[in-house]
């Protein structure tokens, strides 16, 4: 096992990873930008290294500075968290070249799954169903129109080089395609350094269900069941839970088997997630693979009792998986909500500022993962996630009750948050019945 781990991230996930390292008795090194001098993750760690200026490219995305921080601090391993450099295969490769362990999959696996058309090809070859669409990026709007006419509208344009909803554009008719193509290409270019865009059929009223997988260096790959993540805005998740409600046993088995086949086909090592769309008939299609720890990993931890971060550390250190497939069970139910510094009444506009009041509930079955506290400055430079609230119960109804009570008890002042929307979601009859799909927020199901 390593002695020292550097956490190449900030906010709640850096704090979560520091806790995981502590559980194994490892020394932790935080990194920070000038805007994060007083951040909680810096205080939590045993040591901290300043990377550079507030903009992420000068700090959390600065590979050279990160590798220098690794050398200065004597870290033997780097945990990338999620976002920032976590799915950057060049960073994983640079770590390997510098003789430091990247806590995650191989650079090759990151590269193959990061190239979305390539990921679709590899998964299709492994027998995993994929959403109908173009095999390769489309060269221009006219080619996009040809593909769209073939697979049928509505379609969605996606950046070949990225994920996280960035550069995605839904297109309802051929008349909208040229303008949407231009926007998607520009966004993809600015976010991922490549304007390549591909076309997929847009599945309406479908659910987002994903499967957590985990592989070790001995070739063992297991799944840790599914998560339902349909409540989203801008293709980014707001509510996640495990087990997925109303998922029939056959579909569930199909999903976990497909996820294992996909992960095995690429020799996957460490924690990863295969995301699927499930249509109202129970048909499912591979969307993409996230080659890292997910934001929503706590719901899986809560129902399986498995600590995913310490498992990541063990597997990265060459140990076998600390759990076998037949011992991984979903017990009870867990639901997570993401509280963002955004104003839901103004189309989720960002709401930077200083947190003047911050009072969160505590209690049995309630787990908090927060990157901020009273007095924290929420900067314009980073993702607006403030904290995650996770409720666990003996069953889904109990988890919902716990979550509803906890949400009511949350007081955050100084910045606008998604709390009012989340309270509405959790009280909504369709959510309570587990009848959810990915377009509910945008269709206004939770307005007023």
């Amino acid at each position, binding site marked *: 096992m390593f002695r020292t781990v550097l956490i190449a991230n900030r906010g709640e996930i850096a704090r979560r990873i520091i806790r995981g390292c502590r559980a194994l008795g490892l020394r932790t090194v935080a990194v920070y930008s000038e805007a994060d001098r007083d951040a909680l993750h810096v205080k939590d760690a045993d040591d901290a290294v300043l990377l550079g200026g507030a903009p992420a490219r000068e700090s959390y995305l600065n590979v050279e500075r990160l590798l220098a921080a690794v050398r200065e601090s004597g870290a033997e391993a780097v945990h990338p968290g999620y976002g920032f450099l976590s799915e950057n295969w060049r960073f994983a490769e640079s770590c390997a070249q510098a003789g430091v362990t990247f806590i995650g999959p191989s650079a090759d696996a990151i590269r193959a799954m990061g190239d979305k058309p390539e990921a679709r090809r590899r998964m299709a070859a492994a027998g995993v169903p994929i959403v109908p669409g173009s095999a390769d990026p489309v060269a221009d709007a006219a080619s996009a129109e040809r593909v769209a006419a073939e697979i049928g509208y509505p379609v969605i344009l996606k950046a070949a080089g990225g994920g996280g909803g960035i550069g995605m554009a839904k297109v309802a008719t051929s008349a909208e395609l040229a303008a949407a193509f231009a926007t998607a290409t520009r966004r993809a270019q600015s976010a991922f350094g490549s304007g390549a865009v591909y076309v997929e059929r847009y599945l309406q009223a479908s659910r987002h269900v994903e499967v957590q997988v985990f592989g070790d260096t001995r070739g063992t790959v297991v799944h840790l069941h599914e998560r339902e993540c349909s409540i989203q805005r801008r293709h980014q998740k707001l509510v996640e839970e495990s087990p997925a409600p109303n998922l029939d046993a056959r579909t569930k088995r199909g999903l976990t088997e497909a996820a294992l086949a996909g992960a095995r086909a690429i020799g996957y090592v460490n924690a990863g997630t295969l995301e699927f769309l499930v249509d109202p008939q129970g048909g499912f299609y591979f969307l993409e693979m996230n080659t890292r720890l997910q934001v929503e990993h706590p719901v899986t931890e809560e129902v399986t009792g498995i600590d995913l971060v310490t498992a990541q550390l063990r597997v990265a250190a060459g140990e076998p998986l600390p759990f076998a497939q037949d011992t991984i069970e979903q017990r009870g139910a867990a639901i997570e909500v993401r509280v963002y510094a955004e104003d839901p009444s103004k189309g989720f506009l960002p709401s930077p500022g200083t947190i003047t009041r911050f009072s969160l509930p505590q209690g049995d079955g309630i787990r908090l993962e927060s990157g901020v506290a009273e007095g924290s400055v929420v900067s*314009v430079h980073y993702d607006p996630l403030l904290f995650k609230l996770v409720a666990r119960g003996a069953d889904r109804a109990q988890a919902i009750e716990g979550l509803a009570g906890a949400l009511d008890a949350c007081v955050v002042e100084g910045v606008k948050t998604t709390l009012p929307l989340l309270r509405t979601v959790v009280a909504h009859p369709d959510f309570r019945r587990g009848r959810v799909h990915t377009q509910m927020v945008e269709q206004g199901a939770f307005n007023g």
Partner: protein
Amino acid sequence: MAEEIKAHITGVVFQVTAKVGDKVAAGDPVIVLESMKMEIPVEAPRAGAVKEIRVREGQTVQEGDTVALLD
């Protein structure tokens, strides 16, 4: 009479999409702000000609700051 176009959120100027002299329609973006990994356009409140641009790319603006003038 010139009308001030104000930023409705705090952010960093990601792009200046209009230049002085441009004729814009109501709702056209004049600048694009980046805040918390999102791109947010600041739009012309009415039709007119851009009289002055008061910000440059990379600059931080506060909510309520005047970013441009419309003739």
